[in-house]
């Protein structure tokens, strides 16, 4: 690690803080607190468990520029047309972190959508109870950085007792013609009591330049609510991302979250779920299909705080060329969380000698009447399966494709939206063609 670049970057960050050190800012106290913490952490402690295997220094050492001034918010019509996913939905467009109403298409009055500053005035109680409350920024450099410096952001609130059939698609578009731009985005979502909705995060790095995205999403499920949440990461060539998604579940709530990583440079996916009530259900499905020099780091934390909740985690990965991956799944079952039912599984197929994956399940169980199980496998294409298909006339590359598709089918078939399935299948098929 180059000390000069490091301190240069710290100076830049400090300068940024000076810019926003405005006592009138709605979140001044929070920002100051997190910035002090950020300074204390000094710089990224590379010996930190969570970052040990992820080449963050690669990103940090670059001479990056902050994207706080929100340039490049205009996109020509053709470009934006090609980005929309062709389904009936509520389309929310963010460009470089700023909500652009002009390009968005929202047609539901039970949804309240605005930037975070504007939202604060009308939702002070919600902000007080939930905003940045469960994000553990005191432990993590990037969480502290984002909390200190975020601007604009997006706030979405679904009122109580509403079932919305049309999904929300949040397009996180990065429009940076230069490389080494540091973008940081904040999202805060409230799903009202008894309400149901599907939300799709669609990340898009238009110019495909190497940039850095630091994103925190906080999603609060109030009582009896139901959320399907998809994170689609295929249009993110050359992007380095440290993403942190914090879910908070209230009584009887149900969450299905899907995270797909098919592209990107260094991608860190942190999913944190707090089951802070009884009778919660949560399913996490993760799929990563990576090649060349891509790196994906999947961290999950499922925290069973109260009794009678169920959690299920299924992550599958295919790694080719020199790609590397990490899976670290933590499950906490607290003292009071009796009758918890938790399951975790991570399965990986490695296609080349140079790729590797580190998988680590971690369980910390304090209650005494629980059912927890976990499993992890790392393997190659099963030679017997391959020979069986070839002995029937199917050539080697087609046979490997069939086996890989069968492997990832378990995750893909759980997707309820056809267009999303198609988008993913197209990218996956392209990647499979490149194997040979």
């Amino acid at each position, binding site marked *: 690690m180059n000390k000069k670049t490091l301190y240069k970057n710290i100076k830049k960050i400090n300068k940024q803080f000076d810019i926003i050190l405005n006592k009138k800012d709605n979140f001044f106290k929070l920002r100051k607190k997190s910035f002090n913490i950020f300074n204390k952490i000094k710089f990224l402690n590379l010996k930190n468990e969570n970052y040990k295997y992820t080449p963050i220094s690669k990103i940090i050492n670059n001479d990056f520029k902050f994207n706080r001034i929100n340039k490049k918010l205009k996109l020509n019509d053709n470009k934006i047309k090609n980005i929309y996913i062709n389904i009936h939905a509520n389309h929310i467009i963010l460009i470089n972190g700023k909500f652009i109403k002009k390009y968005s298409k929202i047609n539901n009055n039970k949804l309240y959508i605005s930037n975070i500053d504007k939202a604060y005035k009308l939702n002070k109680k919600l902000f007080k109870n939930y905003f940045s409350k469960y994000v553990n920024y005191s432990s993590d450099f990037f969480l502290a950085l984002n909390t200190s410096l975020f601007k604009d952001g997006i706030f979405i609130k679904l009122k109580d007792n509403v079932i919305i059939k049309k999904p929300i698609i949040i397009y996180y578009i990065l429009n940076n013609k230069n490389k080494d731009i540091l973008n940081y985005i904040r999202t805060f979502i409230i799903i009202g009591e008894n309400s149901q909705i599907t939300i799709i995060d669609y990340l898009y790095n238009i110019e495909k330049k190497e940039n850095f995205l630091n994103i925190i999403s906080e999603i609060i499920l109030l009582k009896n609510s139901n959320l399907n949440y998809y994170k689609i990461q295929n249009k993110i060539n050359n992007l380095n991302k440290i993403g942190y998604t914090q879910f908070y579940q209230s009584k009887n709530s149900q969450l299905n979250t899907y995270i797909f990583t098919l592209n990107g440079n260094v991608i860190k996916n942190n999913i944190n779920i707090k089951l802070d009530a009884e009778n919660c259900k949560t399913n996490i499905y993760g799929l990563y299909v990576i090649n060349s020099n891509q790196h994906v780091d999947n961290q999950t934390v499922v925290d069973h705080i109260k009794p009678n909740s169920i959690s299920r985690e299924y992550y599958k990965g295919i790694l080719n060329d020199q790609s590397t991956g990490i899976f670290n799944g933590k499950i906490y079952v607290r003292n009071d969380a009796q009758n918890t039912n938790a399951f975790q599984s991570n399965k990986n197929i490695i296609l080349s000698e140079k790729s590797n994956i580190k998988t680590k399940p971690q369980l910390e169980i304090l209650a005494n009447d629980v059912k927890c199980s976990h499993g992890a496998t790392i393997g190659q294409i099963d030679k017997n*399966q391959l020979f*069986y298909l070839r002995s*029937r*006339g199917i050539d*080697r590359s087609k046979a490997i494709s069939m086996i890989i598709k069968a492997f990832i089918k378990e995750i893909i078939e759980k997707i309820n939206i056809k267009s999303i399935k198609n988008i993913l299948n197209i990218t996956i098929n392209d990647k499979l063609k490149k194997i040979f």
Partner: protein
Amino acid sequence: MYKFIKFNNYIEKLFFFILKNEYFKLKKIKYNKIKNFMLKIKNLEVFIDKKKILKGINLEILSGEIHAIMGPNGSGKSTLASVLAGKEIYKITNGSINFFKKDLIELSPEERAGEGIFLAFQYPVEIPGVSIVNFIKTAINQIRIYKEIDTLDAVSFISYMNEKIKLINIDKNLLNRSLNEGFSGGEKKKNEIFQMAMLDPKLIILDETDSGLDVDSLKEAAKSINKLKNKNNSIIIITHYQRLLNYITPDFVHIIYNGKIIKSGDKNLAIKIEKKGYNWIK
């Protein structure tokens, strides 16, 4: 006929000896030209890791024939089957395998399937997530592409498949499932026979198809296989026991022991094995 000729001296004897050999040579050449040699294995030696399993196999099969290969455990039966199908863990160190005069050793497993070789596995592997219908359609069309003939479209494929389902009496529901996933032994064997019916191979190798089957399932399997048998295809039945040979009658029976074929005969040889075991041949 030469037995009745009295030889006056050894020169005459020699003359007739040479004549006899030439006569039989010519007869053999004519014989070869008339019959279609499907498979010719010559002096085949095969290693796995550093162990020699096949120590010089010689075998000739013509179109339309049924050959049984019997032998005790470890004799090399299944190795022979796997080598014919092209399994890559086996190293061929000597000898040749010709299939309709083509050098089989040069061909990949998928090419061999294209040429018309089909191995019915003893323990068919499970491939969850691959549907049988999709799998067999892909296989049929890939083989058709290899043979440079038109592939089957969806409609033709379905009617072709329905024909075969009727022919071998397989439960249609089985076909909607994932390949061999959760199948019983009998269901797996039935699936192998279904694939056989669909792919219409020239050389069918049954690798211990009778293992794990009860008498009724065995009869069923034999019935279906007999339906698929015609004068243009051949079958190699690899087995321990004589049982299956009661229902599928072999033209030739070969005994393989310690990597070599040590005795050949007709179906009576199989009956003798059943009564006496393998020890008397060793």
